[in-house]
Protein backbone atom coordinates (compact mmCIF):
# COMPACT_ATOMS: atom_id res chain seq x y z
CA UNK A 1 0.00 0.00 0.00
CA UNK A 2 1.19 3.53 0.64
CA UNK A 3 4.88 2.94 1.08
CA UNK A 4 5.34 6.53 2.21
CA UNK A 5 3.34 6.20 5.42
CA UNK A 6 5.38 6.82 8.50
CA UNK A 7 6.17 3.73 10.61
CA UNK A 8 8.26 3.01 13.70
CA UNK A 9 11.48 4.20 12.14
CA UNK A 10 11.86 7.84 11.17
CA UNK A 11 12.22 8.13 7.36
CA UNK A 12 15.06 10.65 7.67
CA UNK A 13 17.08 8.14 9.71
CA UNK A 14 16.88 5.73 6.80
CA UNK A 15 18.48 8.31 4.53
CA UNK A 16 21.61 8.66 6.64
CA UNK A 17 24.62 6.54 5.79
CA UNK A 18 24.41 4.60 9.07
CA UNK A 19 20.64 4.20 8.69
CA UNK A 20 21.07 2.74 5.22
CA UNK A 21 23.73 0.36 6.43
CA UNK A 22 21.59 -0.93 9.31
CA UNK A 23 18.49 -1.17 7.08
CA UNK A 24 20.21 -3.18 4.38
CA UNK A 25 21.96 -5.51 6.78
CA UNK A 26 18.74 -6.22 8.71
CA UNK A 27 16.92 -6.76 5.43
CA UNK A 28 19.60 -9.17 4.21
CA UNK A 29 19.58 -11.17 7.43
CA UNK A 30 15.76 -11.30 7.38
CA UNK A 31 15.75 -12.42 3.75
CA UNK A 32 18.24 -15.18 4.51
CA UNK A 33 16.37 -16.34 7.63
CA UNK A 34 12.95 -16.32 6.00
CA UNK A 35 14.19 -18.12 2.92
CA UNK A 36 15.88 -20.69 5.13
CA UNK A 37 12.79 -21.15 7.28
CA UNK A 38 10.09 -21.24 4.62
CA UNK A 39 11.66 -22.07 1.28
CA UNK A 40 14.42 -24.53 2.21
CA UNK A 41 11.96 -27.10 3.67
CA UNK A 42 10.04 -27.00 0.41
CA UNK A 43 13.24 -27.21 -1.64
CA UNK A 44 14.31 -30.14 0.54
CA UNK A 45 11.06 -31.97 -0.18
CA UNK A 46 11.00 -31.25 -3.91
CA UNK A 47 14.63 -32.38 -4.40
CA UNK A 48 14.41 -35.15 -1.81
CA UNK A 49 11.80 -36.86 -3.93
CA UNK A 50 14.34 -36.99 -6.77
CA UNK A 51 17.02 -38.74 -4.70
CA UNK A 52 17.59 -42.48 -4.60
CA UNK A 53 16.44 -44.28 -1.42
CA UNK A 54 20.10 -44.90 -0.53
CA UNK A 55 20.94 -41.22 -0.85
CA UNK A 56 17.92 -40.27 1.26
CA UNK A 57 19.04 -42.55 4.09
CA UNK A 58 22.56 -41.20 3.95
CA UNK A 59 23.90 -39.43 7.03
CA UNK A 60 24.82 -36.57 6.74
CA UNK A 61 22.26 -35.78 4.01
CA UNK A 62 23.18 -34.25 0.68
CA UNK A 63 22.01 -30.71 -0.10
CA UNK A 64 21.90 -31.26 -3.84
CA UNK A 65 20.97 -34.70 -5.15
CA UNK A 66 24.07 -36.57 -6.32
CA UNK A 67 21.89 -38.25 -8.93
CA UNK A 68 18.76 -36.53 -10.20
CA UNK A 69 15.78 -38.82 -10.72
CA UNK A 70 12.88 -36.59 -11.78
CA UNK A 71 11.14 -39.70 -13.06
CA UNK A 72 10.54 -40.59 -9.39
CA UNK A 73 7.51 -38.32 -9.52
CA UNK A 74 5.95 -40.18 -12.42
CA UNK A 75 6.77 -43.52 -10.81
CA UNK A 76 5.35 -42.47 -7.44
CA UNK A 77 2.19 -41.25 -9.18
CA UNK A 78 1.79 -44.61 -10.91
CA UNK A 79 2.74 -46.86 -8.02
CA UNK A 80 0.65 -45.02 -5.45
CA UNK A 81 -2.32 -44.83 -7.85
CA UNK A 82 -2.49 -41.10 -7.19
CA UNK A 83 -5.00 -40.47 -10.00
CA UNK A 84 -7.66 -42.14 -7.88
CA UNK A 85 -6.83 -40.16 -4.73
CA UNK A 86 -6.63 -36.86 -6.59
CA UNK A 87 -10.06 -37.54 -8.09
CA UNK A 88 -11.41 -38.48 -4.65
CA UNK A 89 -10.08 -35.22 -3.23
CA UNK A 90 -11.47 -33.19 -6.12
CA UNK A 91 -14.85 -34.88 -5.68
CA UNK A 92 -14.92 -34.12 -1.94
CA UNK A 93 -13.69 -30.52 -2.28
CA UNK A 94 -15.79 -29.74 -5.36
CA UNK A 95 -18.96 -31.22 -3.89
CA UNK A 96 -18.42 -29.46 -0.56
CA UNK A 97 -17.97 -26.20 -2.46
CA UNK A 98 -21.14 -26.58 -4.56
CA UNK A 99 -23.31 -27.69 -1.64
CA UNK A 100 -22.01 -24.88 0.53
CA UNK A 101 -22.91 -22.27 -2.08
CA UNK A 102 -26.28 -23.89 -2.76
CA UNK A 103 -27.18 -23.86 0.93
CA UNK A 104 -25.48 -20.73 2.21
CA UNK A 105 -26.18 -18.22 -0.55
CA UNK A 106 -30.01 -18.59 -0.47
CA UNK A 107 -29.95 -18.60 3.34
CA UNK A 108 -27.88 -15.43 3.50
CA UNK A 109 -30.11 -13.82 0.85
CA UNK A 110 -33.26 -14.70 2.81
CA UNK A 111 -31.79 -13.35 6.06
CA UNK A 112 -30.51 -10.19 4.41
CA UNK A 113 -33.20 -9.24 1.91
CA UNK A 114 -36.39 -11.27 2.45
CA UNK A 115 -36.14 -10.83 6.24
CA UNK A 116 -38.66 -13.42 7.42
CA UNK A 117 -40.13 -13.27 10.90
CA UNK A 118 -37.72 -14.84 13.43
CA UNK A 119 -34.95 -14.50 10.85
CA UNK A 120 -32.78 -12.88 13.51
CA UNK A 121 -33.43 -15.79 15.86
CA UNK A 122 -32.29 -18.23 13.15
CA UNK A 123 -29.20 -16.14 12.47
CA UNK A 124 -28.46 -15.94 16.19
CA UNK A 125 -28.76 -19.71 16.55
CA UNK A 126 -26.38 -20.12 13.63
CA UNK A 127 -23.85 -17.70 15.10
CA UNK A 128 -23.95 -19.48 18.45
CA UNK A 129 -22.48 -22.52 16.69
CA UNK A 130 -19.33 -20.48 16.07
CA UNK A 131 -18.61 -20.90 19.77
CA UNK A 132 -18.64 -24.68 19.38
CA UNK A 133 -15.44 -25.68 17.59
CA UNK A 134 -16.03 -28.45 15.08
CA UNK A 135 -13.49 -30.89 16.49
CA UNK A 136 -15.06 -30.76 19.93
CA UNK A 137 -18.35 -31.92 18.38
CA UNK A 138 -16.66 -34.81 16.61
CA UNK A 139 -18.51 -37.61 18.42
CA UNK A 140 -22.12 -36.40 18.10
CA UNK A 141 -21.65 -35.32 14.46
CA UNK A 142 -20.09 -38.70 13.72
CA UNK A 143 -23.09 -40.45 15.29
CA UNK A 144 -25.38 -38.22 13.20
CA UNK A 145 -23.58 -39.33 10.05
CA UNK A 146 -23.81 -42.98 11.06
CA UNK A 147 -27.59 -42.67 11.42
CA UNK A 148 -29.03 -39.36 10.18
CA UNK A 149 -31.99 -38.45 12.42
CA UNK A 150 -35.42 -38.49 10.70
CA UNK A 151 -33.94 -39.76 7.43
CA UNK A 152 -32.31 -42.85 8.99
CA UNK A 153 -29.54 -43.00 6.46
CA UNK A 154 -26.01 -44.17 7.08
CA UNK A 155 -23.66 -41.79 5.24
CA UNK A 156 -20.41 -43.58 6.12
CA UNK A 157 -18.26 -44.00 2.98
CA UNK A 158 -20.53 -41.61 1.07
CA UNK A 159 -19.11 -38.25 -0.06
CA UNK A 160 -22.18 -36.55 1.43
CA UNK A 161 -20.74 -37.38 4.86
CA UNK A 162 -18.11 -34.76 4.04
CA UNK A 163 -20.30 -32.41 1.99
CA UNK A 164 -23.28 -31.92 4.29
CA UNK A 165 -21.53 -31.07 7.59
CA UNK A 166 -19.34 -28.60 5.65
CA UNK A 167 -22.48 -26.71 4.63
CA UNK A 168 -23.36 -26.00 8.27
CA UNK A 169 -20.93 -23.09 8.31
CA UNK A 170 -22.34 -20.09 10.15
CA UNK A 171 -19.33 -17.98 9.38
CA UNK A 172 -19.89 -18.12 5.61
CA UNK A 173 -23.57 -17.27 5.98
CA UNK A 174 -22.59 -14.35 8.18
CA UNK A 175 -20.08 -12.82 5.77
CA UNK A 176 -22.40 -13.44 2.79
CA UNK A 177 -25.27 -11.77 4.65
CA UNK A 178 -23.10 -8.81 5.57
CA UNK A 179 -22.14 -8.39 1.93
CA UNK A 180 -25.74 -8.74 0.67
CA UNK A 181 -26.81 -6.12 3.26
CA UNK A 182 -24.79 -3.58 1.31
CA UNK A 183 -26.65 -4.23 -1.95
CA UNK A 184 -29.13 -1.29 -2.13
CA UNK A 185 -32.79 -2.25 -1.66
CA UNK A 186 -33.74 0.17 -4.48
CA UNK A 187 -32.04 -2.17 -6.97
CA UNK A 188 -34.13 -5.08 -5.72
CA UNK A 189 -37.33 -2.99 -5.80
CA UNK A 190 -36.59 -2.00 -9.37
CA UNK A 191 -36.12 -5.65 -10.27
CA UNK A 192 -39.41 -6.53 -8.58
CA UNK A 193 -41.26 -3.83 -10.50
CA UNK A 194 -39.78 -5.30 -13.67
CA UNK A 195 -41.39 -8.57 -12.66
CA UNK A 196 -38.49 -10.51 -11.24
CA UNK A 197 -39.31 -12.93 -8.43
CA UNK A 198 -37.03 -13.40 -5.40
CA UNK A 199 -35.03 -16.10 -7.19
CA UNK A 200 -34.62 -13.98 -10.31
CA UNK A 201 -33.50 -11.04 -8.18
CA UNK A 202 -30.96 -13.19 -6.38
CA UNK A 203 -29.66 -14.67 -9.63
CA UNK A 204 -29.59 -11.54 -11.79
CA UNK A 205 -28.96 -8.69 -9.35
CA UNK A 206 -27.42 -9.90 -6.10
CA UNK A 207 -25.08 -12.62 -7.31
CA UNK A 208 -23.39 -10.63 -10.09
CA UNK A 209 -22.73 -7.84 -7.58
CA UNK A 210 -21.34 -10.30 -5.05
CA UNK A 211 -18.58 -11.87 -7.11
CA UNK A 212 -15.78 -10.78 -4.74
CA UNK A 213 -17.38 -12.34 -1.67
CA UNK A 214 -18.38 -15.46 -3.62
CA UNK A 215 -14.75 -15.84 -4.66
CA UNK A 216 -13.59 -15.54 -1.07
CA UNK A 217 -16.15 -18.05 0.22
CA UNK A 218 -15.37 -20.45 -2.64
CA UNK A 219 -11.63 -20.38 -2.07
CA UNK A 220 -12.01 -20.75 1.70
CA UNK A 221 -14.26 -23.77 1.26
CA UNK A 222 -12.14 -25.52 -1.38
CA UNK A 223 -8.93 -24.99 0.58
CA UNK A 224 -10.53 -26.16 3.83
CA UNK A 225 -11.88 -29.30 2.17
CA UNK A 226 -8.55 -30.06 0.49
CA UNK A 227 -6.67 -29.68 3.79
CA UNK A 228 -9.12 -31.61 5.95
CA UNK A 229 -7.86 -34.80 7.55
CA UNK A 230 -9.59 -35.93 10.72
CA UNK A 231 -13.16 -35.86 9.41
CA UNK A 232 -12.57 -37.81 6.15
CA UNK A 233 -10.40 -40.21 8.19
CA UNK A 234 -13.44 -41.02 10.33
CA UNK A 235 -16.28 -41.07 7.80
CA UNK A 236 -14.49 -42.64 4.82
CA UNK A 237 -13.05 -45.91 6.15
CA UNK A 238 -13.11 -47.45 2.65
CA UNK A 239 -9.52 -46.96 1.38
CA UNK A 240 -10.75 -46.60 -2.20
CA UNK A 241 -12.78 -43.50 -1.28
CA UNK A 242 -10.27 -41.60 0.82
CA UNK A 243 -8.80 -38.23 -0.13
CA UNK A 244 -5.06 -37.63 -0.53
CA UNK A 245 -4.45 -36.53 3.05
CA UNK A 246 -5.94 -39.69 4.57
CA UNK A 247 -4.32 -41.90 1.93
CA UNK A 248 -0.83 -40.45 2.43
CA UNK A 249 -1.05 -40.81 6.20
CA UNK A 250 -2.29 -44.39 5.85
CA UNK A 251 0.54 -45.55 3.56
CA UNK A 252 3.32 -43.40 5.08
CA UNK A 253 4.88 -46.30 7.01
CA UNK A 254 5.10 -48.76 4.12
CA UNK A 255 6.10 -46.47 1.24
CA UNK A 256 9.73 -45.84 0.18
CA UNK A 257 10.62 -42.38 1.48
CA UNK A 258 11.33 -40.83 -1.93
CA UNK A 259 7.94 -41.96 -3.28
CA UNK A 260 6.16 -40.73 -0.16
CA UNK A 261 7.83 -37.32 -0.39
CA UNK A 262 6.95 -37.15 -4.10
CA UNK A 263 3.33 -37.84 -3.09
CA UNK A 264 3.47 -35.07 -0.45
CA UNK A 265 4.78 -32.57 -2.99
CA UNK A 266 2.19 -33.55 -5.60
CA UNK A 267 -0.65 -33.32 -3.05
CA UNK A 268 0.39 -29.75 -2.22
CA UNK A 269 0.80 -28.49 -5.78
CA UNK A 270 -2.87 -27.68 -6.48
CA UNK A 271 -3.15 -25.53 -3.35
CA UNK A 272 0.14 -23.77 -4.06
CA UNK A 273 -1.03 -23.05 -7.62
CA UNK A 274 -4.35 -21.81 -6.25
CA UNK A 275 -2.48 -19.54 -3.86
CA UNK A 276 -0.23 -18.07 -6.53
CA UNK A 277 -3.22 -17.37 -8.80
CA UNK A 278 -5.70 -16.11 -6.19
CA UNK A 279 -3.30 -14.44 -3.77
CA UNK A 280 -5.33 -11.29 -3.54
CA UNK A 281 -8.63 -13.04 -2.81
CA UNK A 282 -6.96 -15.34 -0.30
CA UNK A 283 -5.37 -12.47 1.57
CA UNK A 284 -8.69 -10.58 1.42
CA UNK A 285 -10.43 -13.62 2.87
CA UNK A 286 -7.83 -13.71 5.61
CA UNK A 287 -9.14 -10.72 7.50
CA UNK A 288 -12.61 -12.18 7.20
CA UNK A 289 -11.38 -15.73 7.72
CA UNK A 290 -9.58 -14.87 10.90
CA UNK A 291 -12.87 -14.24 12.59
CA UNK A 292 -13.71 -17.91 12.19
CA UNK A 293 -10.91 -19.53 14.09
Amino acid sequence: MAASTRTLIRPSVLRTRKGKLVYWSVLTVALALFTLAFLVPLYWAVTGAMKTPAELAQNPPTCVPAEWHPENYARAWREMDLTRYFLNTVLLAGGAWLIQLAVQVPAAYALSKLRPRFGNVVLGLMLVTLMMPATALLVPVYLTVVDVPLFHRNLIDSPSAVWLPAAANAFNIYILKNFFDRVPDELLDAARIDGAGPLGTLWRIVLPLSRPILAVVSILSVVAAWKDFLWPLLVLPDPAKQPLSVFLQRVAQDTPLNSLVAGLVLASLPLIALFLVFQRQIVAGLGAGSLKG
Partner: protein
Amino acid sequence: MTTAPLLKKPPSRSPATAAQGRRAARLRRSVREHLTAYGFLCAAVVIFALFSWWPIVRNVLLAFQDVNFATGSTWTGLTNFEKLFADPLLATAWRNTAVFTAYALVLGFFVPFLTAVLLNEFRHARAYFRVLVYLPVMLPPVVVALMWKWFYDPGPGLLNEVLRTLHLPTSAWLDSSSTSLVSLVIVSTWANMGTATLIYLAALQTIPGELYEAAELDGANLWQRLRHVTVPQTRFVLLVLLLLQIVATMQVFTEPYVMTGGGPDDSTVTVMFLVYRYAFVYNDFGTASALSLLLLLVLAAFSALYLRVTRTKEG
Protein backbone atom coordinates in the same frame (compact mmCIF):
# COMPACT_ATOMS: atom_id res chain seq x y z
CA MET B 1 -85.44 8.33 -1.91
CA THR B 2 -84.70 4.67 -2.15
CA THR B 3 -81.45 5.36 -3.88
CA ALA B 4 -80.24 7.62 -1.16
CA PRO B 5 -79.77 4.88 1.45
CA LEU B 6 -78.34 2.67 -1.25
CA LEU B 7 -75.95 5.38 -2.14
CA LYS B 8 -75.32 6.06 1.47
CA LYS B 9 -74.81 2.50 2.49
CA PRO B 10 -71.79 1.62 0.37
CA PRO B 11 -69.70 4.54 1.62
CA SER B 12 -70.48 3.51 5.19
CA ARG B 13 -69.48 -0.12 4.60
CA SER B 14 -66.83 0.18 1.95
CA PRO B 15 -64.02 1.71 4.05
CA ALA B 16 -64.38 -1.19 6.46
CA THR B 17 -64.49 -3.90 3.80
CA ALA B 18 -61.78 -2.22 1.80
CA ALA B 19 -59.60 -2.03 4.87
CA GLN B 20 -60.43 -5.64 5.68
CA GLY B 21 -59.69 -6.61 2.13
CA ARG B 22 -56.45 -4.73 2.19
CA ARG B 23 -55.53 -6.32 5.48
CA ALA B 24 -56.37 -9.77 4.13
CA ALA B 25 -54.39 -9.10 0.99
CA ARG B 26 -51.47 -7.80 3.00
CA LEU B 27 -51.68 -10.83 5.27
CA ARG B 28 -51.74 -13.16 2.28
CA ARG B 29 -48.80 -11.38 0.74
CA SER B 30 -46.93 -11.37 4.02
CA VAL B 31 -47.61 -15.09 4.53
CA ARG B 32 -46.47 -15.75 1.00
CA GLU B 33 -43.36 -13.63 1.47
CA HIS B 34 -42.51 -15.39 4.71
CA LEU B 35 -43.04 -18.77 3.09
CA THR B 36 -40.76 -17.77 0.21
CA ALA B 37 -38.15 -16.53 2.66
CA TYR B 38 -38.29 -19.73 4.65
CA GLY B 39 -38.11 -21.66 1.40
CA PHE B 40 -34.74 -20.03 0.79
CA LEU B 41 -33.71 -20.70 4.38
CA CYS B 42 -34.97 -24.23 4.80
CA ALA B 43 -31.95 -26.11 3.42
CA ALA B 44 -29.64 -24.25 5.77
CA VAL B 45 -31.97 -24.75 8.73
CA VAL B 46 -32.21 -28.51 8.08
CA ILE B 47 -28.42 -28.82 7.67
CA PHE B 48 -27.76 -26.81 10.81
CA ALA B 49 -30.34 -28.78 12.76
CA LEU B 50 -28.80 -32.10 11.72
CA PHE B 51 -25.11 -31.30 11.81
CA SER B 52 -24.79 -28.51 14.33
CA TRP B 53 -27.70 -27.78 16.66
CA TRP B 54 -28.73 -31.34 17.44
CA PRO B 55 -25.09 -32.50 17.88
CA ILE B 56 -24.51 -29.69 20.40
CA VAL B 57 -27.48 -30.89 22.46
CA ARG B 58 -26.68 -34.50 21.85
CA ASN B 59 -23.11 -34.13 23.06
CA VAL B 60 -24.48 -33.21 26.49
CA LEU B 61 -26.90 -36.15 26.46
CA LEU B 62 -24.26 -38.63 25.25
CA ALA B 63 -21.95 -37.69 28.11
CA PHE B 64 -24.44 -39.32 30.48
CA GLN B 65 -25.16 -42.36 28.31
CA ASP B 66 -23.63 -45.67 27.51
CA VAL B 67 -23.78 -45.66 23.70
CA ASN B 68 -24.56 -49.01 22.15
CA PHE B 69 -25.46 -49.30 18.48
CA ALA B 70 -26.96 -52.79 18.74
CA THR B 71 -29.11 -52.64 21.88
CA GLY B 72 -29.69 -48.90 22.11
CA SER B 73 -28.14 -46.41 24.48
CA THR B 74 -28.81 -46.42 28.21
CA TRP B 75 -28.60 -43.67 30.82
CA THR B 76 -25.71 -44.18 33.16
CA GLY B 77 -25.55 -40.93 35.10
CA LEU B 78 -22.04 -39.88 35.99
CA THR B 79 -20.40 -43.25 35.20
CA ASN B 80 -18.62 -41.83 32.13
CA PHE B 81 -17.13 -39.00 34.15
CA GLU B 82 -16.08 -41.40 36.92
CA LYS B 83 -14.36 -43.60 34.33
CA LEU B 84 -12.73 -40.56 32.79
CA PHE B 85 -11.38 -39.20 36.07
CA ALA B 86 -10.02 -42.63 36.96
CA ASP B 87 -7.93 -42.59 33.77
CA PRO B 88 -4.41 -41.37 34.61
CA LEU B 89 -4.09 -40.20 30.99
CA LEU B 90 -6.75 -37.52 31.55
CA ALA B 91 -4.44 -35.34 33.63
CA THR B 92 -1.59 -36.02 31.19
CA ALA B 93 -3.73 -35.01 28.22
CA TRP B 94 -4.89 -31.76 29.82
CA ARG B 95 -1.36 -30.95 30.97
CA ASN B 96 0.04 -31.63 27.48
CA THR B 97 -2.70 -29.56 25.87
CA ALA B 98 -2.08 -26.69 28.29
CA VAL B 99 1.67 -26.84 27.71
CA PHE B 100 1.14 -27.04 23.95
CA THR B 101 -1.13 -23.99 24.08
CA ALA B 102 1.33 -22.10 26.27
CA TYR B 103 4.27 -22.83 23.94
CA ALA B 104 2.08 -22.02 20.95
CA LEU B 105 1.24 -18.67 22.50
CA VAL B 106 4.86 -17.80 23.14
CA LEU B 107 5.89 -18.84 19.62
CA GLY B 108 2.69 -18.44 17.62
CA PHE B 109 1.71 -15.15 19.19
CA PHE B 110 4.92 -13.18 19.56
CA VAL B 111 6.84 -14.47 16.56
CA PRO B 112 4.18 -13.37 14.02
CA PHE B 113 3.75 -10.02 15.75
CA LEU B 114 7.47 -9.26 15.80
CA THR B 115 7.74 -10.54 12.23
CA ALA B 116 4.95 -8.21 11.14
CA VAL B 117 6.55 -5.23 12.93
CA LEU B 118 9.83 -6.01 11.18
CA LEU B 119 8.29 -6.54 7.73
CA ASN B 120 6.32 -3.32 8.10
CA GLU B 121 9.60 -1.39 8.29
CA PHE B 122 10.94 -2.88 5.08
CA ARG B 123 10.58 -0.95 1.84
CA HIS B 124 11.83 -3.82 -0.34
CA ALA B 125 10.90 -7.41 -1.13
CA ARG B 126 7.58 -7.08 0.69
CA ALA B 127 5.67 -9.29 -1.75
CA TYR B 128 8.37 -11.95 -1.45
CA PHE B 129 8.15 -11.97 2.34
CA ARG B 130 4.38 -12.10 2.26
CA VAL B 131 4.24 -15.04 -0.15
CA LEU B 132 6.98 -16.86 1.74
CA VAL B 133 5.38 -16.57 5.13
CA TYR B 134 1.94 -17.55 3.86
CA LEU B 135 3.01 -20.46 1.65
CA PRO B 136 2.97 -23.12 4.42
CA VAL B 137 -0.58 -22.11 5.38
CA MET B 138 -1.69 -23.50 2.03
CA LEU B 139 -0.10 -26.91 2.60
CA PRO B 140 -2.39 -29.68 3.88
CA PRO B 141 -1.62 -30.32 7.59
CA VAL B 142 -0.96 -34.01 6.88
CA VAL B 143 1.66 -33.07 4.29
CA VAL B 144 3.26 -30.66 6.76
CA ALA B 145 3.24 -33.28 9.52
CA LEU B 146 4.73 -36.06 7.37
CA MET B 147 7.31 -33.71 5.87
CA TRP B 148 8.44 -32.48 9.28
CA LYS B 149 8.52 -36.00 10.66
CA TRP B 150 11.21 -36.59 8.07
CA PHE B 151 12.99 -33.28 8.81
CA TYR B 152 13.07 -34.23 12.51
CA ASP B 153 14.78 -37.56 11.82
CA PRO B 154 17.78 -37.52 14.18
CA GLY B 155 20.00 -39.21 11.55
CA PRO B 156 19.64 -37.88 7.99
CA GLY B 157 17.08 -35.24 8.97
CA LEU B 158 17.28 -31.68 7.68
CA LEU B 159 17.04 -29.97 11.08
CA ASN B 160 19.99 -31.65 12.74
CA GLU B 161 21.98 -31.07 9.57
CA VAL B 162 21.24 -27.35 9.81
CA LEU B 163 22.24 -27.37 13.50
CA ARG B 164 25.47 -29.24 12.70
CA THR B 165 26.29 -26.72 9.97
CA LEU B 166 25.84 -23.90 12.46
CA HIS B 167 27.88 -25.85 15.06
CA LEU B 168 24.93 -26.04 17.42
CA PRO B 169 24.00 -29.07 19.54
CA THR B 170 21.63 -31.45 17.77
CA SER B 171 18.40 -32.73 19.29
CA ALA B 172 16.40 -35.95 19.44
CA TRP B 173 13.26 -33.89 18.54
CA LEU B 174 10.24 -36.20 18.43
CA ASP B 175 12.10 -39.17 19.91
CA SER B 176 12.50 -37.72 23.38
CA SER B 177 9.60 -37.04 25.71
CA SER B 178 11.27 -33.82 26.85
CA THR B 179 11.38 -32.26 23.36
CA SER B 180 8.47 -33.96 21.57
CA LEU B 181 5.80 -31.43 22.54
CA VAL B 182 7.86 -28.37 21.66
CA SER B 183 8.82 -30.03 18.34
CA LEU B 184 5.12 -30.26 17.49
CA VAL B 185 4.61 -26.61 18.44
CA ILE B 186 7.45 -25.59 16.11
CA VAL B 187 5.71 -27.40 13.24
CA SER B 188 2.33 -25.87 13.85
CA THR B 189 3.84 -22.41 14.29
CA TRP B 190 5.75 -22.80 11.03
CA ALA B 191 2.61 -23.93 9.26
CA ASN B 192 0.22 -21.33 10.65
CA MET B 193 2.13 -18.15 11.43
CA GLY B 194 1.47 -16.71 7.95
CA THR B 195 -2.15 -16.00 8.78
CA ALA B 196 -1.41 -14.05 11.95
CA THR B 197 1.53 -12.23 10.36
CA LEU B 198 -0.52 -10.92 7.45
CA ILE B 199 -3.36 -9.86 9.75
CA TYR B 200 -0.95 -7.97 12.01
CA LEU B 201 0.68 -6.42 8.97
CA ALA B 202 -2.69 -5.11 7.79
CA ALA B 203 -3.37 -3.72 11.26
CA LEU B 204 0.04 -2.04 11.44
CA GLN B 205 -0.58 -0.28 8.16
CA THR B 206 -3.63 1.47 9.59
CA ILE B 207 -1.66 3.20 12.37
CA PRO B 208 -1.51 6.95 11.60
CA GLY B 209 2.09 8.04 11.07
CA GLU B 210 1.48 11.25 13.05
CA LEU B 211 1.29 9.19 16.23
CA TYR B 212 4.89 8.11 15.77
CA GLU B 213 5.94 11.65 14.94
CA ALA B 214 4.18 13.01 18.01
CA ALA B 215 5.78 10.33 20.21
CA GLU B 216 9.15 11.18 18.75
CA LEU B 217 8.70 14.89 19.51
CA ASP B 218 7.99 13.84 23.10
CA GLY B 219 11.36 12.11 23.08
CA ALA B 220 10.18 8.51 22.82
CA ASN B 221 12.88 6.11 21.67
CA LEU B 222 12.31 3.11 19.38
CA TRP B 223 11.29 0.75 22.18
CA GLN B 224 8.97 3.33 23.74
CA ARG B 225 7.32 4.00 20.39
CA LEU B 226 6.74 0.27 19.97
CA ARG B 227 5.45 -0.04 23.51
CA HIS B 228 3.26 3.07 23.61
CA VAL B 229 2.13 3.50 19.99
CA THR B 230 2.34 0.23 18.06
CA VAL B 231 1.03 -2.11 20.74
CA PRO B 232 -1.92 0.03 21.94
CA GLN B 233 -2.91 0.79 18.34
CA THR B 234 -3.07 -2.92 17.46
CA ARG B 235 -4.42 -4.06 20.83
CA PHE B 236 -7.77 -5.16 19.43
CA VAL B 237 -6.24 -7.39 16.75
CA LEU B 238 -3.73 -8.75 19.26
CA LEU B 239 -6.50 -9.71 21.67
CA VAL B 240 -8.66 -11.27 18.96
CA LEU B 241 -5.83 -13.39 17.61
CA LEU B 242 -4.75 -14.37 21.11
CA LEU B 243 -8.20 -15.80 21.82
CA LEU B 244 -8.37 -17.48 18.41
CA GLN B 245 -4.97 -19.00 18.95
CA ILE B 246 -6.05 -20.46 22.29
CA VAL B 247 -9.22 -21.94 20.81
CA ALA B 248 -7.37 -23.37 17.80
CA THR B 249 -4.37 -24.86 19.61
CA MET B 250 -6.45 -26.48 22.34
CA GLN B 251 -8.01 -28.67 19.64
CA VAL B 252 -4.68 -29.91 18.32
CA PHE B 253 -4.97 -33.40 16.90
CA THR B 254 -3.43 -33.93 13.46
CA GLU B 255 0.19 -33.24 14.45
CA PRO B 256 0.34 -35.68 17.40
CA TYR B 257 -1.75 -38.26 15.54
CA VAL B 258 0.43 -38.24 12.42
CA MET B 259 3.85 -37.46 13.89
CA THR B 260 4.10 -39.17 17.27
CA GLY B 261 0.96 -41.24 17.84
CA GLY B 262 0.85 -39.71 21.34
CA GLY B 263 4.33 -40.89 22.30
CA PRO B 264 7.02 -41.12 23.46
CA ASP B 265 5.72 -42.01 26.94
CA ASP B 266 2.37 -40.29 26.32
CA SER B 267 4.21 -36.96 26.14
CA THR B 268 2.09 -35.80 23.19
CA VAL B 269 -1.32 -37.20 24.15
CA THR B 270 -3.64 -34.20 23.85
CA VAL B 271 -7.27 -33.88 24.90
CA MET B 272 -8.54 -34.30 21.33
CA PHE B 273 -6.22 -37.25 20.89
CA LEU B 274 -7.78 -38.86 23.96
CA VAL B 275 -11.30 -38.09 22.70
CA TYR B 276 -10.38 -39.80 19.43
CA ARG B 277 -8.96 -42.79 21.26
CA TYR B 278 -12.00 -43.26 23.50
CA ALA B 279 -14.44 -42.95 20.60
CA PHE B 280 -12.71 -44.63 17.70
CA VAL B 281 -10.22 -47.02 19.30
CA TYR B 282 -12.14 -48.14 22.41
CA ASN B 283 -15.60 -47.51 20.83
CA ASP B 284 -16.64 -45.84 24.07
CA PHE B 285 -18.63 -42.93 22.64
CA GLY B 286 -20.16 -42.00 26.00
CA THR B 287 -16.83 -41.37 27.73
CA ALA B 288 -15.50 -39.64 24.60
CA SER B 289 -18.52 -37.32 24.74
CA ALA B 290 -17.96 -36.64 28.43
CA LEU B 291 -14.40 -35.54 27.64
CA SER B 292 -15.59 -33.54 24.58
CA LEU B 293 -18.07 -31.80 26.85
CA LEU B 294 -15.29 -30.72 29.21
CA LEU B 295 -13.23 -29.46 26.28
CA LEU B 296 -16.28 -27.76 24.78
CA LEU B 297 -16.99 -25.88 28.01
CA VAL B 298 -13.43 -24.56 28.18
CA LEU B 299 -13.38 -23.62 24.48
CA ALA B 300 -16.86 -22.07 24.56
CA ALA B 301 -15.71 -19.78 27.37
CA PHE B 302 -12.84 -18.48 25.22
CA SER B 303 -15.05 -18.31 22.12
CA ALA B 304 -17.72 -16.37 23.99
CA LEU B 305 -15.08 -13.95 25.18
CA TYR B 306 -13.85 -13.63 21.60
CA LEU B 307 -17.34 -12.98 20.18
CA ARG B 308 -17.94 -10.44 22.93
CA VAL B 309 -14.71 -8.63 22.13
CA THR B 310 -15.40 -8.53 18.38
CA ARG B 311 -19.06 -7.54 18.85
CA THR B 312 -18.15 -4.62 21.12
CA LYS B 313 -15.71 -3.42 18.52
CA GLU B 314 -18.28 -3.68 15.74
CA GLY B 315 -21.08 -2.12 17.78
